């Protein structure tokens, strides 16, 4: 194959992607992300997490709350550090650090539209199980340090008064999730224009509702935040898809089947390692996994890559080490690599077989 053909397959992938995904997947997804940033009080969520006193409760709150704090592995670090140094336990802080990039609503819904509902359900459950395991391991490994740390400051923890979300915001959020899901689930096999019709109805409902319940200024905020997501993530997504197209052309199918196929422990470990080291912005993991699965990657390794891809990366390891200390990073990262490998292997041999 000549280099020209290789480049061409990159553009080919880009063309398919733009034709099929931009309108019905990405536009609602970015609007949804904008709503989450504008109308959900993330501060309130993080305060709730910090205020929980018992361990099971704080773990559950951290895992649940992280679903709506959509973030890449890089932007979540200051949030987790704020939580930790604000008095929350080491467990919840690292749960947030893991769940917010690995399994937020945005990434899950987007994975669903590309890879189907089943693997998303498994991704969600696996991410939660891994979150609890990581929280447990971190609390156990640093239990002495945890005891020595000052008790949470009560004046800070009683300030939980701000509401996380008002009801109209919840409805708007749900309408957008619907607009994102409906075209890809209702019209699974029909022609593309049917998807567009379903999409248009969904968008009209969401916008109609927004104009009825929101002030101009709020809508302005929402649009600006949405535009930020477009500016930050869209170029990365396009670059990602282009690279994926090239990888698809260069990588022999036999190689993918050999090293990432099936459901062996080795494939799962390799997939985890790729995911844990390379940087994926939220959502970019889905097209890569889609392509690799087309080339023969097993469902188990695919799950492992979906989980560790956005959640971990080399820059993220370094940042965690800098903010939380080298020792915590040395426990956190290997724990997730072991868990990712095991989860991919187990799921590949059971639910995803």
């Amino acid at each position, binding site marked *: 194959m000549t280099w020209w053909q290789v480049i061409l397959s990159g553009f080919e992938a880009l063309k398919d992607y733009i034709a099929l995904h931009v309108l019905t997947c990405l536009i609602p997804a970015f609007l949804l992300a904008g709503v989450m*940033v*504008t109308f959900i009080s*993330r*501060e309130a969520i*993080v305060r709730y997490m910090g205020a929980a006193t018992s361990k099971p409760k704080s773990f559950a709150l951290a895992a649940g709350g992280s679903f709506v704090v959509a973030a890449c592995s*890089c*932007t979540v*670090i*200051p*949030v987790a*550090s*704020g*939580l930790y*140094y*604000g008095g929350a336990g080491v467990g919840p802080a690292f749960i947030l650090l893991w769940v917010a990039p690995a399994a937020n609503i945005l990434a899950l819904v987007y994975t669903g539209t590309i890879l189907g509902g089943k693997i998303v359900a498994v991704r969600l459950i696996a991410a939660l199980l891994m979150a609890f395991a990581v929280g447990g391991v971190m609390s156990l490994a640093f239990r002495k340090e945890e005891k020595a740390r000052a008790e949470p400051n009560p004046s800070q923890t009683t300030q939980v008064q701000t509401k996380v979300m008002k009801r109209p915001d919840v409805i708007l959020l749900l309408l957008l999730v619907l607009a994102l899901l409906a075209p890809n689930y209702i019209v699974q096999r029909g022609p593309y224009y049917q998807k567009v019709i379903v999409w248009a109805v969904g968008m009209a409902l969401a916008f109609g509702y927004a104009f009825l319940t929101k002030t101009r200024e709020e809508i*302005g*905020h929402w649009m*600006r*935040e949405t535009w*930020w997501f477009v*500016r*930050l993530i869209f170029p990365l997504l396009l670059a990602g898809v282009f690279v994926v197209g090239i990888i698809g052309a260069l990588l022999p199918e036999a190689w993918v089947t050999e090293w990432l196929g099936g459901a062996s422990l080795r494939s799962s470990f390799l997939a985890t390692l790729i995911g844990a080291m390379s940087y994926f912005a939220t959502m970019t993991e889905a097209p890569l996994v889609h392509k690799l699965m087309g080339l023969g990657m097993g469902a188990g390794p695919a799950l492992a890559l979906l989980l560790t891809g956005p959640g971990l990366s080399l820059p993220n390891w370094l940042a965690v080490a800098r*903010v939380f200390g080298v020792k915590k990073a040395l426990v956190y990262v290997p724990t997730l690599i072991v868990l990712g490998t095991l989860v991919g292997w187990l799921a590949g041999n059971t639910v995803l077989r």
Partner: protein
Amino acid sequence: MRIEILGTGCPKCQATEQIVRKALAELGMEAEVVHINDPRKFREYGVMFTPAVAIDGQVKVSGRVPSVEEIKRLLAT
């Protein structure tokens, strides 16, 4: 007047600094603008989500990029 921009150096934080400078220029005001990227300092201010803008030690905007108009309004009061 001292305006602090709390950010991690992310694109949104850079944009916030630009917007603050633009608002100052449009109002014809002079102020000391500093970019703070030390997470410990964020905690002192109680800021969790960056970017944030603090004017004379008081956090005015947090977790989003403000508009030029918004900063002008804050500076005028």
